[in-house]
């Protein structure tokens, strides 16, 4: 005996089935709620080593540096320059700029110098939406210096910005 499903019921099943299928696809992919980054506490007693650790945390969190923009130790087609060894080569990137000046400029005025082969696009990280404080930026610089260089930034360092 051939089972005949009435047309309205078929339509209802099609609508429910299709919607359920797409919703199911949405459930099987990895789930992540994106919360605002937690506040990072910086206090006056922090040493350069402490700042490196805080900077690393900021780079993959509030600073959004490692969230699809920069990489550390990757090659091939990249969106933005790989940061591996930046601490060592920062002093030779732009004539007339010291390591510290170069790193500070690339965070406060990223459009001032674009690494050849890459497009402009990075936003000043002391402004919204990233909006890092001056102390937080010093921590990020300490972390950048640690990638192939020797960190020497403290909270008392004057970045000139």
């Amino acid at each position: 005996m051939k089972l005949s499903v009435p047309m309205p019921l078929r339509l209802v099943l099609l609508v429910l089935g299709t919607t359920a299928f797409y919703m199911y696809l949405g459930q099987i992919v990895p789930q992540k709620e994106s919360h605002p980054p937690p506040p990072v506490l910086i206090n006056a007693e922090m040493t350069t080593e402490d700042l490196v650790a805080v900077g690393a945390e900021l780079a993959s969190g509030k600073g959004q540096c490692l969230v699809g923009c920069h990489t550390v130790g990757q090659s091939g087609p990249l969106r933005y320059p790989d940061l591996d060894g930046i601490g060592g080569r920062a002093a030779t990137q732009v004539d007339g700029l010291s390591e510290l000046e170069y790193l500070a400029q690339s965070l406060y005025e990223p459009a001032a110098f674009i690494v050849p082969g890459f497009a402009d696009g990075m936003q000043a990280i002391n402004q919204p939406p990233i909006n890092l404080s001056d102390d937080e930026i010093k921590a990020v610089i300490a972390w950048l210096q640690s990638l192939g260089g020797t960190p020497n930034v403290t909270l008392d360092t004057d970045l000139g910005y």
Partner: protein
Amino acid sequence: MTRNRILFGIGVLAFVSVIVTVRLGGFLVDNEYRQPDRQVAAQEELGEAELVPRQQGIADEQAADEAEARARPYEEAEYRTVPFVGSRVTVWVLAQLHLLFAAFVLAVPLFAFIIEFVGYVKKEERYNKLAYEFTKLLSVSFSMTATFGAFLTFALIILYPKFTNYLMHIFSPTFLPYVLLFFLEALFLYSYYYGWGKFGPKMHLFLGFMLNVVGTAIMFIANAWLTFMMSPGKRDDIDGDGVPDFVSAVSESGALLSLRDAFFNFTWMPINIHRIIANVAFGGSIAAAYAAFRYLQAKTDEERAHFDWMGYVGNFVAIIAFLPLPFAGYYLAAEIYAFSQTLGIQMMGGTFSWLFVLQAALIGNLFLGANYYLWLGMGRMEGGVHFQKFIKWLLIAIALCFAVWATPRYAISSVSEIAAMGGSSHPQLSYLGQMSAKNTAVNILILSTYMSFLLYRRTGRQSIHPHRQLLTRAQAIVFSSAAALVIFYGVYGYFVDSATRIRFAIPQVYSVLAALVVITVIDLPLYRNAAQSGETKWGRIPAVSQYALIFIALSFTWLMGLMGYVRSGLRQEWHVYGVILDTSPDAYTPSLGFATQVVSVTVLIFFGLIGVVFWLSSLSGKKDYAPGAAPEDGGRIEGGQAA
């Protein structure tokens, strides 16, 4: 019979509603607080002036509450909540429903006007009838749009009073023009619909044209409000170095600096373009779903032929609009990147990377559904078998492109997965997730779908053009060249730096667009007055094709819902990106799983409501009720004569 069942169903529903209301009222009355009889007797003994201890306690409590309320200073609420569902989901669902109906109401007049115009030029009445059939769907949908618009406005004012007040501070000068345009839209819409056959064709076409102009203007104003939230400023070369700079429309504290810059903000025009095209694609698919619904209800071959044709036209409109949609999407995405790399990267490589896998599945299904419908449509004509050998190759090409497009570059992964892959991206598959591969896949998808359409167009027709062989070869060369260029740039993109690779999208897009235009330009004279090897038999198509049309409409609706989530979710914890922070408990981006649940519920509500629109629209074709007359379907009328 069906009508009687529906009326019976409505009657039962009304009866049940009354019973439930009465029972609910009775329950509340029965459960209200009443003074115990003993207390009344005791109070009577004590006299009116003295209260029993419990009464005194209640009176004291009330007095304390009142004193507290009087002492409390007035504070403006920043947020309010909705129990169970939450404020965000409430506004989300209402906004999405408003947008879906608005998209439909804006799209249908656009192609109804074009179809009517074609009928006027060709002097063929069937086009006029078809345009009218589409327009019938508008009046109820227009009311739905307005209802959800009002509902959304109230929800925003109640649930997000401070933020809504801020938007009013920025955009209040645009409200009056918006209302006036809305009034004009109602005027043009109803005169266009009710004036069908009452005005001369030119006057009627003018009404249709004005309806489209006004509708588009309304959308442009509303788009300014929402795009401002994502990109509160414009792009201008203020320092004269030839590189456009960002000019904020508001100060750091959010005060308005320039209404012009707030209105004509960075993503305003890309959204306008994207929405116009997407609306037409969506509107076409919903109109095709209506035709499919009527086809499946049809009782005569004549009705089936009419609604088959209507479904074909609706789907044709949807697919023609759908083909350039990815280009509009890329333009929008490029503008989002240009405005803020953070937003762009968040969209494509961060939290939302898996969303684009889902989007790929939806778009892949849309392409598959559209091609499947075209292939089934070849059965309407004699000679369709000749082209069926190409279908499997097209299917393979579409499936491969689908797979490439669905491969993400970066993905949210567990620690063990990251360790196994050696990073957040897969060592081999991530190459397919890069822009080069994705651009190549989508361009080949578009070319393949266009090829399906060309095959469909040729089915049952034989060109009589004197240079038909030459022109057909020219088409094949153009097609192959475009495909070869797309693949060449796709592969070459892996060997150049990122700045150059991004620019490769332009020749890829232009080669496909040029191929579409050139092939169409050749095809028109090639098949003009072509010899028919068989008659087109409208209505001769398997019923499953109609379910395919409804599936396409469902997928479009779901896709719009998903894109609504990513467009709003991109802002993350910001009401206005970089200016006004969201400080409510909802200041986070929900997971994709949760978002798909909300989108699914919205789609189901929309299809429930659009079903009502379809049903109401189908009533206009029914015979008027006449007491004692036999109903159309040969059933019985209660108390009347048998059919």
